[in-house]
């Protein structure tokens, strides 16, 4: 086992490539072929999960579609039973999530589709592909007194959820760079009746040109490979090579450093991705902990039974503080593969 600090001082990419190659075998190639993945991904899954049985469970779960989830928008709906009743008249069967009283898993779809009902158009609910996207706002739990930064905010599921938690008070600054996606962000904010948010179209890595030491809470749901969303997009089985993951990591590091710099001393920063790739998760946080002394990882409230983050990866020993970061897997928590890490700035 070699310490992360030693690997990072040399060439992380070369280390990972060499290690993956050394662990490749015929059985891994066969499984990759059977499920249609790049074989390097299976090597990593085996290292992360510890046994081929677990890997097969993960791959099988990626074959099963996710049940969509809706969040009743309390900014527009006083009593969520009103929404449930209206949707049941359209043929929908909903089941409330145990850990989020305003969210419902859609067990049976009615007509019209969830993105076309009057209730959707009136902003009574936000539609999610899976339930994991509900976790970040609940964990960050902003109050009406908070100044919140939402970096890479579009299309706005988490922004609108935080606005709901804040009762449309306080301030959220929602930042995104994409001209197309920011229109969707504005459209969703307007549809859901969000009034406490300023949208800023700019490169999130340059946010410190505008804000430094400013926000009490910052959320970075970072752009990623979406390796936790293979149920929804099967092209992700082959879309991303290791070098692509490392490019994502560079962007994620730039954004996370910017988010930390934008956060005031004593403030919280939540880093999340919809990816199960350690390169985009633990290896990002490990780099932050290795290069900054003003930020610490803090425990995440146990909203659900999370999986622990990975502390050893491909022969690397990662910083012990990563034990406070958490993961979800489709075959364990029944939701998208997700990574969440809460930090506090000092």
């Amino acid at each position, binding site marked *: 086992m070699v310490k992360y600090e030693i690997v990072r001082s040399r060439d992380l990419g070369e280390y990972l490539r060499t290690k993956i190659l050394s662990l490749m075998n015929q059985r891994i190639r066969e499984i990759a072929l059977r499920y249609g993945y790049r074989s390097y991904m299976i090597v990593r899954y085996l290292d992360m999960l510890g046994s081929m049985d677990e890997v097969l469970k993960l791959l099988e779960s990626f074959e099963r579609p996710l049940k969509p989830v809706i969040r009743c928008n309390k900014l527009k709906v006083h009593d969520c039973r009103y929404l449930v009743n209206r949707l049941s008249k359209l043929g929908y069967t909903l089941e409330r999530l145990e850990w989020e009283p305003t969210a419902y898993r859609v067990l049976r779809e009615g007509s019209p589709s969830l993105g076309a009902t009057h209730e*959707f*158009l009136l902003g009574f609910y936000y539609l999610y592909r899976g339930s994991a996207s509900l976790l970040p706002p609940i964990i960050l739990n902003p109050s009406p007194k908070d100044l919140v930064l939402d970096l890479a905010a579009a299309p706005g599921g988490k922004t609108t959820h935080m606005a709901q938690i804040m009762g449309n008070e306080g301030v959220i600054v929602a930042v995104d760079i994409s001209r197309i996606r920011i229109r*969707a962000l504005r459209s969703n904010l307007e*549809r859901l009746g969000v009034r406490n948010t*300023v949208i*800023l179209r700019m490169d999130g890595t340059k946010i410190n040109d*505008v804000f430094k030491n400013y926000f009490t809470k910052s959320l970075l749901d970072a752009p990623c490979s979406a390796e936790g969303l293979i149920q929804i997009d099967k092209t992700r089985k082959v879309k991303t090579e290791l070098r692509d993951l490392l490019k994502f990591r560079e962007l994620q590091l730039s954004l996370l450093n910017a988010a930390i710099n934008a956060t005031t001393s004593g403030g919280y920063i939540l880093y999340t991705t919809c990816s199960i790739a350690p390169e985009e998760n633990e290896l990002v946080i490990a780099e932050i902990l290795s290069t900054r002394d003003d930020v610490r990882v803090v425990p995440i409230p146990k909203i659900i039974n999370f999986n622990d983050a990975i502390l050893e990866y491909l022969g690397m020993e990662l910083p012990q503080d990563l034990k406070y970061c958490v993961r979800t897997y489709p075959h364990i928590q029944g939701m998208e593969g997700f990574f969440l890490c809460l930090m506090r700035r000092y």
Partner: protein
Amino acid sequence: MLNEEILKGSGGGISCYIIEGRNVLDVIAKLFGFEAATLLRSLGKLMICEGVFKEVYIVSGELINVIKVIFKSGRIPYSAGLYLGRLRREKPKLIPSVNTIQIIYDKLGFRRALIVREEGIKPFLYGNDIIKKSIIKCIEPLELGDIVGIVGEDNYVYGVGLSVIGSCNELNSLKDNDMVARNIFDVGWYLRGGTEVRERMFKL
């Protein structure tokens, strides 16, 4: 108006400024009554952003503090607070947003509204106009060529129309399929992607 200007910024060919907005509130008062203007004024000041369009937002004191920082950096917000609507030089002088109209109706009751049956709301959500036979109730004041709230049987605002009649009495002289209000904006826009430029024909 310049006297009350307190803050401004510009970027990308658009300039924004934050004002008390008495002129805009006068337009609101004319459309929905003095109490509607008072209600909206209680929510904050106005940020007006002017480019091809002239859009108005209501921003709280807390949001203004953040916008000040953004202006100082040489940028402007993409949007902020409650989108009140779009200002024009000619009639209709203001195209209010669905949220603005809903806030007014929720607090002060219906006014300048057409209550439309479900059979009329469905085509309206595909961009069609409102015809006489769809209307359950017409609520004054209506004005030829000015805006009217389009409300469903569930009392929710589904869009904004442009009245082609001068008062509810004129409905009596119309045939079933005659247009009563032209579709300016409907919430079906959110289904159509929410990414197209809306109210395209209503520039400054």
